């Protein structure tokens, strides 16, 4: 199923240094089907607080190749397991300042409940299986963050 999606993964699953535009990415998703009625989006941005400490900059590193592979798997499983028409995932790497975009998930479906379900599942799954690491700079120095011990 979703054979139309094959080959275009590169646009719908990206790990990139540059920022992204929501309008542009939403157009990309929306253009996939005129049946899309509900689009749920998760945008993660860099906060100035983490675990009770101030943070002034975050650096993300990823395992090149495996990170992309895991994100492609997430997209494929989401397209199979949820009643959605498209799913897009972008994760940035490198230095990110407070307030900047980190990660974007867009799920487009005929109906909003499934769009929300797929979007939430995808961001939860991304955190579990994608080899990406986060270095937070605080007044006390730099710390590699361990999300789930």
């Amino acid at each position: 199923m979703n054979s139309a999606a094959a080959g275009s993964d590169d646009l719908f699953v990206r790990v990139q240094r540059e920022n992204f535009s929501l309008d542009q990415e939403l157009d990309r998703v929306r253009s996939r089907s005129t049946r899309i009625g509900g689009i749920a989006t998760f945008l993660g941005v860099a906060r100035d607080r983490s675990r009770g400490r101030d943070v002034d900059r975050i650096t993300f590193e990823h395992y090149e190749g495996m990170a992309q592979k895991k994100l492609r798997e997430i997209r494929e499983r989401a397209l199979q397991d949820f009643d959605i028409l498209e799913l897009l995932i972008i994760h940035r790497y490198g230095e990110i300042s407070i307030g900047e975009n980190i990660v974007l998930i867009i799920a487009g479906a005929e109906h909003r409940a499934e769009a929300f379900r797929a979007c939430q599942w995808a961001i939860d799954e991304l955190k579990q299986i994608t080899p990406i690491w986060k270095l937070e700079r605080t007044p006390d120095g730099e710390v590699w963050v361990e999300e789930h011990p």
Partner: protein
Amino acid sequence: MTKMMAGNQPALSLNVANGAKVKDVIAAIEAGYPHIGELIHKKKVLVSVNQEIAHEDTIVHASDEVALLPPFAGGAGHPESREGDHA
């Protein structure tokens, strides 16, 4: 066979026989780097072979890409406020 580890950790250099299992690789790591061996046993660090999480009996070939993966932290922050930064 390459090895990587996120963070400021330098690459590890190990000698493991071709066709060995992941548990042999772990044993070699433990010998040279006991603190990393402990992290692997505690599942704080995972081992991947060819970009898939490996288990102890996964066989490693000379051309395989082996990596040690500290806990992932992609995405943004926590799902819930478990951080203690607001009561």
